[in-house]
């Protein structure tokens, strides 16, 4: 909590972002403590890693357009005007704590139900089962949300002022060594997602990390891949997911009703395509603008 306060209150924006990344790491440890390694993976990969990279990218772009970005951020609401805000926030915090206080310490969650139906889901990791079988509607929409975010970013049409410095030997070597390892670990996480913590989102984030690394060391999307192939890859995951959602609707009359016998296989297909699409979407979000052919030349 102190870390979060520091991250939000520090005068220097760069410091705030570094603190935010550290905050993500601490959150990941908290998830481990709460026996939720799935979330720890997602938080470490997506929450800390990619959000940090996105924030830094925005920070640098803001700094390039106006070098004094660090000056005007310290000007915030202060003095007498902040007291009502502080008081109402304290009041809200107490109200929230009061709302949590009477909750019974033992509540029957859905854990037993999930455990009872786990063998019909095709996977043995309960979180993956919930994500991709029992409540796959959420996950489908989540993939869509990512895609929509990308569409939003693209339609804003910010082309990034790309001024890549030469990466240098050390950075170059490091990225060349890390990229294959990252891809390997992504594939491992994807495969392990069926029976252990891991899965499409974590693996997608690892793929996105590869892309961020490569972009930072001066790699550019080949012009031939920029238009249609990129878009096809972006929609491959959602489309596969949708198809596998609609086919049961036609056959059995229920959306997203995966037949238990095939569920494991189908989940793997969905997850693989979703991983690739999520990774690509996140890379594209990091890049910020729709790549068009004129820029490439």
């Amino acid at each position: 909590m102190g870390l979060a306060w520091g991250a939000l209150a520090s005068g220097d924006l760069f410091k705030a972002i570094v603190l935010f990344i550290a905050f993500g790491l601490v959150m990941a440890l908290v998830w481990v403590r709460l026996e939720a390694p799935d979330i720890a993976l997602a938080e470490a990969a997506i929450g800390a890693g990619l959000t940090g990279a996105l924030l830094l990218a925005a920070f640098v772009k803001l700094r390039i357009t106006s070098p004094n970005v660090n000056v005007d951020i310290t000007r915030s609401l202060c003095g007498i005007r902040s007291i009502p805000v502080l008081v109402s926030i304290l009041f809200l915090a107490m109200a929230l704590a009061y709302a949590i206080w009477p909750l019974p310490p033992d509540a029957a969650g859905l854990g037993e139900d999930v455990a009872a139906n786990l063998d019909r889901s095709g996977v043995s990791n309960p979180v993956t089962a919930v994500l991709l079988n029992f409540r796959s509607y959420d996950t489908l929409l989540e993939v869509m949300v990512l895609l929509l975010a990308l569409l939003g970013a693209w339609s804003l049409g910010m082309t990034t002022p790309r001024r890549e410095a030469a990466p240098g030997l050390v950075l170059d070597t490091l990225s060349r060594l890390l990229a294959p390892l990252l891809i390997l670990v992504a594939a491992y996480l994807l495969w392990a997602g069926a029976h252990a913590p891991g899965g499409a989102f974590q693996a997608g984030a690892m793929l996105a990390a590869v892309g961020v690394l490569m972009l930072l060391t001066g790699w550019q999307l080949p012009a031939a891949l920029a238009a249609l192939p990129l878009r096809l890859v972006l929609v491959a995951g959602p489309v596969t997911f949708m198809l596998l959602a609609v086919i049961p609707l036609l056959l059995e009359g229920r959306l997203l009703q995966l037949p238990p016998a095939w569920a494991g296989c189908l989940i793997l297909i969905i997850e693989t395509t979703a991983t690739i699409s999520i990774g690509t979407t996140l890379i594209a979000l990091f890049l910020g603008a729709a790549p068009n052919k004129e820029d490439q030349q």
Partner: protein
Amino acid sequence: MQTLFFTLALFLVLNPGAGMWRVLRGPTAADRMLAAQVFGTTAVAILLLLAEAAGSAALRDVALVFALLAAVTAVTVVAFVRRAWPNSGSGNDAG
């Protein structure tokens, strides 16, 4: 053995807590990055200890992801810092 693992993990948690002071104070961005890098390494050590103590192999995967992503994050930060203060470097490396 279990108690040793847990005690060490707790002790390692305290280390970055102290290092936080460097992030807050550290006069240059380099100091902050340094401290952030230590957080990553310590977190990996903590996760490995907890994986052994709690007997859950999954935490070892988390540690692996941590190690990889700490590297990626650090590279990101360094690359952006290099780009954000472009007047301070002429681009070609010593290496």
